[in-house]
């Protein structure tokens, strides 16, 4: 079976109309799975849970497998209540991005997808989560080819494995909002200003080198990881699904490029950056240490 393509959850904050038109367009793309929902900040409510569920139903109607993604960092009771609404949706599988979600899903005996922030570094952790109901693991951002091979060599029956193949790497989460900090606003009075940065807010070193991307409480890499040129290795490692993260512009072309690479098994030229993580190296591309 050839690798399936997934559209990861939208990590940025866009206006409602833009989100809806993005997914309306995505319905025409050669994708297999679409993840929906807010994973970064619970204050981002251009779409409410009910809106996401309606969108999920529409996309399922179009023949996509739809998964509902949960928040990566939960702190407040209100966030747990939103989580429960996702868990109890009665139809779609949930991507658990935190152990709170794993527990809620496990208590209800529901199968789930383990998201990339779960910290699954070895086969025992993976086995335990499989007992809890995990059917697919989105590999953590640090994990690469070597760990996948180690998982296989343990002989355990592996769940489906999904790998981040395109997008800025989600590197860290905090309680602090870095966008609000950059704009000198208090988090509680942030004015939802993330909406002005549909691809996040670029952060550079003092010598002007692009370094990170500030996205509310999340920090991402500045460059886009691109694993399309590694298509032969990904096939060899028997990765089941490749994840593409939405971005403000050009997602359609990226999906088409990956579709072509997967179907033809031909490696395209690199457009984004090499992912060091896949090769067991620092993920940040080598920098010129002068200046």
């Amino acid at each position, binding site marked *: 079976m050839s690798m399936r393509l997934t559209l990861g959850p939208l990590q940025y904050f866009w206006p409602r109309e833009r989100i809806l038109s993005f997914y309306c367009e995505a319905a025409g793309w050669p994708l297999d799975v679409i993840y929906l929902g807010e994973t970064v900040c619970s204050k981002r409510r251009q779409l409410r849970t009910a809106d996401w569920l309606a969108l999920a139903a529409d996309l399922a109607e179009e023949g996509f497998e739809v998964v509902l993604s949960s928040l990566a960092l939960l702190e407040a009771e209100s966030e747990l209540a939103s989580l429960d609404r996702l868990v109890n949706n009665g139809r779609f599988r949930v991507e658990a991005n935190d*152990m709170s979600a794993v527990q809620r899903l496990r208590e209800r005996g529901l199968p789930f997808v383990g998201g990339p922030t779960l910290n699954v570094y*070895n086969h025992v952790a993976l086995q335990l989560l499989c007992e809890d109901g995990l059917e697919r693991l989105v590999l953590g951002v640090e994990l690469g080819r070597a*760990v996948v091979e180690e998982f296989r060599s343990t002989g355990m029956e592996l769940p489906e494995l999904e790998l981040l193949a395109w997008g800025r790497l989600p590197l860290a989460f905090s*309680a602090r909002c870095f966008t609000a900090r950059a704009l000198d606003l208090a988090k509680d009075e942030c004015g939802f200003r993330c909406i002005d940065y549909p691809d996040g807010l670029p952060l550079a070193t003092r010598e002007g080198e692009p370094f990170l991307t500030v996205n509310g409480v999340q920090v991402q890499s500045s460059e886009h990881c691109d694993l399309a040129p590694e298509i032969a290795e990904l096939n060899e490692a028997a990765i089941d699904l490749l994840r593409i993260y939405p971005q403000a512009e050009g997602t359609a072309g990226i999906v088409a490029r990956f579709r072509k690479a997967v179907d033809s098994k031909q490696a395209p030229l690199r457009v984004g950056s090499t992912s060091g993580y896949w090769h067991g190296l620092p993920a940040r591309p080598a920098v010129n240490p002068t200046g």
Partner: protein
Amino acid sequence: MYLVCPAGNLPALKAAVDGGADAVYLGFRDQTNARAFPGLNFTEADLLAGVDYAHRHRRKLYVALNTYPGPTRLAGWRAAVDRAAEVGADAIICADMGVLDYASRRYPDLARHLSVQGSATTHPALRYYRERFGIARAVLPRVLSVQQVERICEQDVVPVEVFAFGSLCIMVEGRCQLSSYVTGEGPNRHGACSPARFVRWDEGRDGTRSVRLNGCLIDRFAADEPGGYPTVCKGRYAVGGEVLHALEEPTSLNTLELLPRLQAAGVAAVKIEGRQRGQAYVATVTRVWRAALDRLQTAPSGWRPDDSWQRELARLAEGRQTTLGPYHRSWH
């Protein structure tokens, strides 16, 4: 409330015990713990001496085994659990489910604490670790406000330990790949944030010092400006045309003034960060917190921290500044 203090070596352990720590925590000299720095942590002989010293003074000794091994390295972490049990540790502090699973099956009587690296910030997450691995305590990540800590305590899933003083991780612990992204090595897998061998300081002709981590410029300091250790989160960067500490300033967490509230909430233990700091740091911080806790017991009404305590703590803080950090909403 228990006072849990760090020990990066035997002299620091003795300083913690002498200063009045109820428990000390330490790590082995390898990557099984999240302060795997060269020259730090316990050799075999020091470990035995440390256990003996702590137990002779009727204090607890915890072993941090709080990094995440890959499949082939898991055997090494199991061996570390065995070692902790053999030497008579009172608890192990773990994050990885593979390590917790082994410990709970093989040594059901050895208390397991969920490390801050386990990133458990809610009562359902704590319930998971309690039901799955029978944890006896959980260390909460430094992202929660004091109100959120109170809510978690109310649920009473498991006794909680919170950070009281020391270097402030501003990201959810266990969820930060910034060091790993830049150097290939980070806290989760390698037990170190911004490992020293990747750090390079350069001084310009005008006395300006630049500090890089694996080639990446983290900050630049004027000749008369103090320069701190280059963790990615405490560097200065350009965002929106302005150069600033875009993520966090070099500062330390200090929750001393929250002590009565933490006690009222039912927090089981307060933790001092700093296994990488020396004996003098441990001695002073332990003494101050012991005095603060003792006075809270004997004279709780109108309790407030002495100015002298705050001065001593600020002197030992990163960048000589302290903050209530995430405990206070204004920090967010």
